């Protein structure tokens, strides 16, 4: 039993952190939201080169995985750096196709997985109970949709909608398109993909919450009101202490879920990280005051993302239900 990141995992996190810091991801994310995807694609390729997308792809399809713990490590960093784009969706698509392959349906895996792992292809998707919209389908290279009829490659997407998160667009996949698989194996693969989507979202939320706390701690140490740094006021201290408690107890749930991939553990991680990140966002906004409320201040990138990740792939109610009632 050694429930701590090992040296390789820590180094992986450090190198992603350094790469994303150097890439100025905040500016890249703002550009992505403004419709300039080129810098974001460049970051995407660097993430792929670092192996991020290969972690969800089995070795027989030119991946490194499946390695859920390392995936969680990576998505914490993506959250901390507010990286834009359908990264969770690409990982979930990889999980979906991998599980289909394990169930004997190898064609789509052979066709798509190597490019997903290498970064050559980005994917987005819709999953049962995950809502009608796919993330960034106007940028993703492939749009997958799972519904009663099975899995299909959607021929495009409906009108692109803006999200509270300025770097995020949503649209429903268009009906029709090329059928890829059907039957019970799709159902099972979709459940598997939902677990991966939830895990990656949970890890990302944790990273978002940590970034919000970091920025807020820095702010309250230097912001002076009534002649003292506001971080010396007990109300401020206690609010941030509660944020830290929530994040630090959500963290082991994320990595525990990655190790077991048990449905209840994944659900617990999704719920706890959603609540912790959203609590961090509410505290961050309150303690920043008006400056935090503006779109141009970088904090907004994490504030809005904490909110939207809460309902991504189903809201807290759905996932709390999955903690106490069986789901596969």
């Amino acid at each position, binding site marked *: 039993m050694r429930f701590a990141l090992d040296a390789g995992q820590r180094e992986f996190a450090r190198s992603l952190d350094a790469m994303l810091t150097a890439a100025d991801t905040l500016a890249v994310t703002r550009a992505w939201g403004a419709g300039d995807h080129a810098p974001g694609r460049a970051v995407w390729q660097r993430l792929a080169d670092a192996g991020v997308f290969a972690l969800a792809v089995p070795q027989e399809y030119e991946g490194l995985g499946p390695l859920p713990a390392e995936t969680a490590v990576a998505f914490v960093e993506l959250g901390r750096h507010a990286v834009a784009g359908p990264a969770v969706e690409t990982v979930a698509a990889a999980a979906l196709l991998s599980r289909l392959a394990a169930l004997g349906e190898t064609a789509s895996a052979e066709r798509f997985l190597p490019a997903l792992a290498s970064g050559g292809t980005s994917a987005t998707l819709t999953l049962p109970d995950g809502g009608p919209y796919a993330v960034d389908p106007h940028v993703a290279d492939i749009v997958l949709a799972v519904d009663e009829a099975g899995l299909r490659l959607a021929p495009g997407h409906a009108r692109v909608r803006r999200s509270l*998160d300025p770097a*995020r667009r949503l649209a429903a996949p268009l009906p029709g398109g090329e059928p890829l698989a059907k039957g019970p194996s799709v159902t099972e693969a979709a459940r598997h993909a939902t677990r991966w989507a939830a895990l990656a979202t949970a890890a990302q939320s944790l990273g978002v919450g940590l970034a919000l706390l970091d920025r807020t701690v820095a702010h309250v140490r230097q912001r002076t009101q009534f002649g003292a740094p506001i971080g010396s006021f007990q*109300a401020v201290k206690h609010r941030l202490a509660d944020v830290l408690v929530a994040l630090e107890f959500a963290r082991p749930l994320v990595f525990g879920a990655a190790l077991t991939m048990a449905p209840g553990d994944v659900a617990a991680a999704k719920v706890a990280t959603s609540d912790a990140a959203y609590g961090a966002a509410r505290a961050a906004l309150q303690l920043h*005051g008006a400056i935090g*409320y503006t*779109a141009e201040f970088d904090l907004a990138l994490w504030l809005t993302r904490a909110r939207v990740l809460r*309902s991504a792939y189903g809201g807290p*109610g759905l996932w709390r239900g999955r903690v106490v009632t069986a789901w596969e």
Partner: protein
Amino acid sequence: MDLDFTAEERAFGQRARAWLAAHVPAAPLPSLETEAGFAAHREWERELAADRWSAVSWPEEYGGQGAGLVKWLLFEEEYHAAGAPGRVSQNGISLLAPTLFDHGTAEQRARVLPAMATGEVIWAQAWSEPEAGSDLASLRSTARRTAGGWLLGGQKAWSSRAAFADRAFGLFRREPYEAGAGASGPGRDGAPASPEPHQGLVYLMFSLRADGVTVRPVGRLDGRPAFAEIFLDDVFVPDEDVIGEPGQGWRIAMSTTGNERGLTLRSPGRFLATADRLARRWRAQGDPQDTALRDRVADAVIGARAYELFTWASASRLAAGETLGAESSLNKVFWSEHDIATHETALDLLGAEGELTDGGGGADGGGGGAAGPAYDWLDGYVFSLAGTIYAGTNEIQRDIIAERLLGLPKGRR
């Protein structure tokens, strides 16, 4: 003890309802944060004013109906229930006008109020500065004495309506320091530089079109323009636009922020209308089995009703000649947190639709029919998030409640 209205009050409410039914635009106006929307909202103010509905509680000579508090509250309830447009004149009517009634000259009232009532002049508030949020005593913008008036310098921030408004009002640090006024130099290091940082402030009105004024719009969290920064470079303000005694601005402003934090800013009407919309949407599209969400909808309804009844109790106390002091801090904490919780519930009810900022209305906007388009909820949510911050953060309100209402000892915060 009763909750009954007089025949005259009921008639007033019915008259308001009838007028609103006949005049409220069928389609929502464009956002008042756009130039076209601002103009449309200004036109709506003119329409209201034409029948004396824009400032019902003012004396008739300034364009009002001389309505008392009860009537004003009834009007507000009808106004929000009718889904009428947002009030672009809100800052002027709720913040500046009460100050002019208390501290302005007759000439100022005659000059300012009628044009405010008609929307001919729209006012922005210019309270805050980058380094002075809730701590107004640390203001740095200055008013320098010059012949026949004052020259403004510095920067104001988070000015709502400033992007398109005509004029603004705010506090400035008087320069040079005059001992007689108890003024002190500005606190350049962010901390108050003198034992009397509240002294020596000038409360004045100025034109946003004047030479030396630069306005930079700033977007709120969802990117919508919401307020602006105002840069002031030797902006001349004539003496006639100073309110009250120069140097006494702090005291004068406190009576205004008293209004801002008190009854007048947040009438129950909006919360009642919002809770009603939420309950209707829940009945229309909520899962009746989902008691977790149902309980939160119930809390929204309970909170709105509590706020309404609390307000009637306050109105009754005022009518009996009592005054409201620190109680307004209870008010502020309650409505601001109620408002956020209500909108969070609505977003959770909307699920995947809840994060969409475009469209609204129609099938792809989340529908909802009479309950309004989905984006109204996200818009309201973002708006609500500011409520616990402005007009004195809720942290400061809780300090006030503890010290002034509960009598707990002052401590360093």
